[in-house]
């Protein structure tokens, strides 16, 4: 009897144990964010911030820089610009990590934007106006991601709504559809965004209507050259740009600075000429990499143009002169031909470093009597930008390099991104990156008018930029050009003078169909190697390999040059 009661108690215990424990199989995540958060009001704001942050993975690191700056008529490979992509050698293949990273990041953040746009209607606890403004921001950002894709890859996958279900299939949309989608997004954005960066209450880096207009003008212009072109693309581009310059900009307090050099002054990234920036901050916990090791989505532009000056006599690495990543060096065409006029046009010396100041006493050369030829604080290297005779050079105590002496380890450094507020000579930059500025709007207007066969109307836009370039020492009148000069080639040259190194050149050359001739003519590394299929980026192998469901996703249809 006693043992029976034990069995009964025991059985009861086991049964109750089982009943109580089934609850234990329910999962309650505490520390991680799950998709449901994305549909809340807090999640909506966080998603929008992330969509902005995505641009730090494109503008700032090495990859998109090599895609946009290297391998053009402006810049060739520096000694450490070892990527095959900038040289168009046969090693440039679909497996190139440079292109696959950009491709992937664009789609990831497009999906974020899609989620924001799709979730907005059901979102409560937020005013309709605020919501509409945020959706307009998301559309601005989405349009820009797609614009990067379509300029580099042509026909690309067009995801118009949020994707939360895993898929192993993908297909390419017609370029025309992608452009239509971009244009609609930009129109919606213009309608919903605050006027411009100078508008009260607009935080630095935020999307604005004037930035969206600028992009829209550029999109019309770009589409006008493609198979997807519409009859009025160049007209629309010109009209949109003209509207910015004549109406929108004055209304929003946006205007050209008097001095070209001030546009790039450190700390002046929110100047009145700027339309949109990608932000960075001295608050390192919120910058790309808090340890300043150049690994995160950091602003590396401060390093990428820098040559190995530090190996020269009298020199060592310092914060002011930068860390020599030596990815690209300017072509002789850029330094000598495009910037032939270095007197009236002040932009060459405002864009390039010409002197390096000695900072290393130990390596300063000594004269016959054993005395250092110069002291720390004196010039150690000078690049006058013009040819000098050997006799002239011999007169100087320090090293003088005319253009003929430029080598891939030592050349003029682009200074638009210099940053001497960094914590360390090797640290990445903490400066915001200017993506769009009003000066380009002028050149877009001019290019569109030329392509629309109205070269005469383009003159004032070009001259506005050129006259500003004379400030303060040049002869303004000598900078003016006439309708006779209004050719596409002149505009491309002018773009180089104004915008060289500003992350758009490769796309400009592809847009205008001039990549092949200009690279062949001006780029010693890429010239011998470039082939017609290089005017488009290959679909990354990671995309080809992963599309294992449905039709193959490959390069064969449009570009048989790529596999």
């Amino acid at each position, binding site marked *: 009897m006693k043992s029976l009661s034990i069995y009964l108690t025991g059985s009861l215990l086991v049964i109750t144990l089982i009943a109580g424990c089934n609850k234990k199989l329910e999962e309650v995540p505490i520390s*991680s964010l799950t998709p449901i958060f994305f549909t809340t009001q807090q999640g909506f704001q966080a998603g929008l911030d992330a969509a902005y942050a995505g641009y730090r993975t494109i503008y700032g690191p090495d990859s998109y820089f090599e895609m946009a700056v290297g391998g053009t008529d402006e810049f060739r490979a520096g000694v450490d610009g070892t990527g095959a992509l900038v040289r168009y050698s046969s090693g440039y293949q679909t497996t190139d990590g440079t292109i696959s990273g950009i491709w992937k990041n664009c789609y990831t953040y497009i999906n974020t934007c899609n989620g924001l746009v799709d979730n907005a209607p059901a979102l409560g606890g937020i005013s309709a106006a605020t919501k509409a403004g945020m959706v307009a921001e998301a559309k601005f950002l989405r349009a820009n991601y797609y614009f990067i894709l379509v300029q580099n890859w042509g026909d690309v996958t067009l995801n118009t709504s949020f*994707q939360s279900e895993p898929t192993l299939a993908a297909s390419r949309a017609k370029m025309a559809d992608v452009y239509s989608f971009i244009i609609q997004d930009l129109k919606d954005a213009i309608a919903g965004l605050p006027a411009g960066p100078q508008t009260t209450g607009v935080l630095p880096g935020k999307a604005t209507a004037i930035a969206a207009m600028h992009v829209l003008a550029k999109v019309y212009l770009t589409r006008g050259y493609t198979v997807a072109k519409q009859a009025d693309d160049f007209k629309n581009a010109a009209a949109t740009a003209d509207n910015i310059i004549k109406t929108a900009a004055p209304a929003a307090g946006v205007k050209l600075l008097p001095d070209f050099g001030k546009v790039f002054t450190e700390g002046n990234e929110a100047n009145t000429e700027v339309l949109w920036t990608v932000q960075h901050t001295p608050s390192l916990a919120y910058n790309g990499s808090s340890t300043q090791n150049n690994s995160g989505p950091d602003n590396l532009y401060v390093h990428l143009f820098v040559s190995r000056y530090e190996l020269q006599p009298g020199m060592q690495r310092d914060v002011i002169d930068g860390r020599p990543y030596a990815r690209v060096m300017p072509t002789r065409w850029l330094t000598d031909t495009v910037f032939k006029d270095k007197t009236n046009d002040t932009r060459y010396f405002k864009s390039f470093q010409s002197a390096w100041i000695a900072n290393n006493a130990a390596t300063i050369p000594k004269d016959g009597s054993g005395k250092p030829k110069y002291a720390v604080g004196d010039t150690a290297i000078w690049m006058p930008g013009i040819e000098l005779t050997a006799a002239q050079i011999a007169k100087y105590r320090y090293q003088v390099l005319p253009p003929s002496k430029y080598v891939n*380890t030592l050349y003029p450094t682009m200074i638009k991104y210099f940053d001497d507020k960094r914590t360390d000579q090797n640290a990445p930059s903490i400066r915001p990156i200017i993506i769009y500025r009003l000066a380009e709007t002028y050149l877009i207007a001019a290019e569109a008018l030329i392509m629309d066969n109205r070269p005469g109307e383009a003159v004032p836009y070009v001259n506005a930029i050129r006259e500003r370039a004379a400030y303060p020492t040049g002869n303004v009148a000598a900078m003016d050009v006439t309708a006779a000069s209004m050719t596409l080639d002149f505009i491309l040259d002018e773009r180089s003078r104004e915008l060289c190194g500003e992350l758009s050149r490769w796309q400009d050359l592809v847009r205008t169909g001039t990549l092949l001739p200009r690279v062949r003519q001006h780029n010693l590394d890429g010239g*011998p190697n470039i082939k017609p299929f290089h005017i488009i980026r290959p679909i990354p192998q990671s995309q080809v390999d992963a599309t294992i469901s449905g039709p193959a996703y490959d390069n064969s249809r449009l570009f048989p040059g790529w596999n």
Partner: protein
Amino acid sequence: MIKKLTRLSIFFMKTSMIALTGLLVFSQVMFAKDANSQITSAPVSIGIKNETLKASIEKIEKKTHIRFSYNSDDLDGYRTEARSYSNEVLANILDRFFSQTQLAYKELNNGIVIYKKAVKPEESVVINTAILVESPLNANITVKGKVSDETGPLIGVIVKIEGTATVVTTDNNGNYSINAPDNAILVFTYVGYVTQQIAVNKQSLINIRLVPESKSLNEVVVVGYGVQKKSDITGSISSISAKDLQDVPSSNLVSALQGQGTGIDIQKSGGNSHPGSVPSITIRGSRSKSASNTPLFVVDGIPYTGSLQDLNMDDVASVEVLKDASSTAIYGSRGANGVVLISTQRGKTGEPKVTYSGYAGFDRPLAKFNVMNGEQYAQLKKWAYYNAASANPLYTSPDDPRILTSGAFGSQELTSIQTGRSTDWQDLIYKSGFLTNHRIGVSGGSEKTQYDISGGYYRETGIYSGQSFTRYSIKISVDQQIGKFLKIGLSTLLNSSYTDGENANPLGQALRASPLATPYDDATGALVGYVNGSANQVWNPLANILPGASIEERKRLGTFTTAYIEANLAPGLKYRLNAGAELDPEVYGNFYAAATYNNQGALSTANNQSKYNYNYTLENLVTYDKTLGQKHHLNFTGLYSLQENEASSNSFNYNSLLSDGVQYFNPSVGSNLTGSGSYAKYDLISYMGRVNYGYDNRYMATVTVRSDGSSKLAPGNKYHLFPSAAFAWNVINERFFKNIPVVSNLKVRLSFGDVGNAAINPYQTLGGLSTVTYNYGTKNTIGAYPTSAPNTNLDWEYTRTLNAGIDFGLFKNRITGSIDAYHEYTRQLLLPETLPPTSGIPNTVLTNVGKSENIGLEINLSTVNIAAKGRDGFGWTTNFNITFNRGKVAQLANGSTVDISNNLFVGQPLGAIFDYKKIGIWQNTHADSVTAKAYGLTMTGGQSVIGTIRVADINGDGKMDANDRIVIGSNQPLFSGGFTNRVSYKGFDFTIAATYRVGGILTSAVYQSGSFLNTLQANYNNLNIPYWTPTNGQNYFPKPTNALTNPLYSSTLSYFSANYLKIRSLSLGYNLPQKLVKAIGARSLKVYATAENPFVLFSPYVNDFHGIDPESAGTLSENTPATRSVLFGINLTL
């Protein structure tokens, strides 16, 4: 009402342990009787007549199959009274038998020994007089002595004079006394021990130590939720004894298991040998791509989730590796990767015994990496700059003096070239490591209480400064019999460990530093930061060695406690509550000063992490054991268990410290504080039933059903049932086999079953968002965006295994072994699928895709080549094992046969290597130029293909592109295994343990892009390879060029034959003679010297490519190289 019940049940659950304890204590009061254990507590139904005691014992023997061991003379004269016993506990029956006799009994080695109680001397004399009468012709002496084994005195050992009927048995203290002719031979026999013969030779004192019969069929093997006699096992199990483990002194158990059994593949992860690293272990190959392939570890019956580094291998008594589905199915969802059962030492009845074991020694790198010296590097650099020059050649030849002044060489490098100076950076950072291990233990116990207590200390310093691993451990186990029906026990493993410098890897810098540069400034003699001439990318590796410059500390407290309460509820029916709890808090911190290679002169950084994990298991076990009729033996085991695991952690980083002295302890003196944290919890609820049925010791069957419910899976998929069945036939016990003396054991086994694997992370089915920081001017924000997609359809991964095995013994078990063949079929393979980037979902999505298959054959052989006769005899034994495993992906769910992004290829193993096929080097010949041109390859300038790696145009489309990649092999060996030879003579024993591996491809990252050791760019030092030049026609290694960060197709340079034979250890030991040992008051003393990893043989990677150690699970990296150590040790028992 329902709510109330639920609350009530939760209350019950929480208090289950307390309640059960109370209940069982209560039952103990009701059933209080004398102590006894396992066998004697079995119920017996038997009719006893008024007959001789001997006849009754024989009757019981026949009925129960329990072996009795006795001297039949002792039983003479005693009779039993007629009585019918029904389901009476055997102990009660025996007590009744012996109550009026001079006899006592004891359960030992699964049998029962009957012996005479200690007799008073005068009684003894009487008996001995009788013997004297029987042998009148010889001069008799009284021989006395003690019989013991390694653990203490043996009671009831039969001592017989050979050729006579004269027999005595040892008493409670193991002592015997026998009157024997002075030239007689004494024969000592004891169940489970090797019979020994000793010549009296006029000695009056003969102490003897009996050795257990190894490979005895009565050997008890630990199986899931219980123990079984080896002869009753139906599944496939590898048993490894403590002795085998101790052949290879190691810091952790996994290292010691290497090469010890079939189907167990243990390799260093990435070849990493830093102090405190635990190698990776897989059982019978890999079957899962994403879910873990690591087996389940069970320590003293409780699943163990902690670090294997926490287990002191000296505390381990035995290790059983369960391999087939029948053995592992009782672990259901966690059995798919095999189960490693670890039993720690428990106390045994007997005198307290004190043991000490310890060793100390040192280690050195097995070899240095073969990098260039100054002269070779200078030449490489010249070639690299010459080859990089663009279309219009800058230089006339590599020896063009303009290269020297082009900025290619640093100032210090130029000085070195002039003076012939060369720095060997490896010499500067390597040092001797020191290893030491000590353990002291006390164990013993009375009939009712047994205990085992030990303390351990292990310390190992690395071959670089700042690397070390230190562990202090304490183990306590107590078993207590309470009354007749209740037993409780507790075992706790406590340790605290300190790992320093776990990520220290100065080799990354030391191997890349220019040999033409020095660590010191030529002018000032101060340590430099960036090493001269290394493109300002290599930081002085000596910088980290400065005191306080680089700190990495992991402090861990590990506690693992198991307890049980066992109650005999009724004859044959047992209830057992097993409870185990694991708590292992851990803190980790690092600090790197600005001038270290970690920060390369930028901000100083610090990171501080803390973790808190707990894991508990509650198991309710019911077993019922019954023998029906004469020959049917039935055993049922039922289980209900709950396991819960909770892990939380946080980590914070800061940099730019005000004072380096603060290290990682105080973020308020740093800037830019960032952090992260996590919390995860999972539960597993299981029900299991197992029936073992045996017929006449000939046929055995096991059927198991387990149902597991896991919180990790989505609702609807949480529960699954895992069935298995096994059958064994002891052929040796068949009557027709009795007359074949050559065969001493033969058993055939067959098993089939389903096991699961849900070793995925909690919350993985839910999807997730990632965070990212951003700012708008001075307004800082944290963004969040979707990066992982939910998958609510996620299900278990299942493996179905068919196993056929045979166990055999020949020539009185001089040769024993087993052969197992298996087929594993894994379905619903869990895979983190890489989606096309256009999906917008950047992270992989865990899905059930496809099927994989493993077939294999395992052979295990142990031979006694020469049996030692006593301590002085010459003996030689060999253990040999070999494993063949063939794995492949059988099917992919979406119907495709190739999934490149996830590296899955139908028909290929899971470790397939998919790459271009290298066919040589583009040579500077007309033919090659024509071909290269036809392929559209760049032929001019710094990126000309001449002298670079040539890959095959596999698809023949006239282009070299990604479509030319194929599966070029895998890391799967043709076969692998290990062997151990032991030779003993006059107290010396010599052991050689080896592992080997034949076939498969070793991927050495040292040779490819990731390591930056073989870039041939000459921005930093390079492996000393015979690179291509236009004149040497090299067809294996490409040319150097400064124009490429890495040679094109550099991955094709990293594949090597994975063959090797590695001598794991050579050990020479000496057991001191008893006389000497006695003199110092000890029971035994052994001294030994061991050389670990003395040789690597037959490795093409080592022999032809100057590799250091070919052993690696996964890709071999340049992390801490393998070491060779020499240890001196001592084992002492008091």
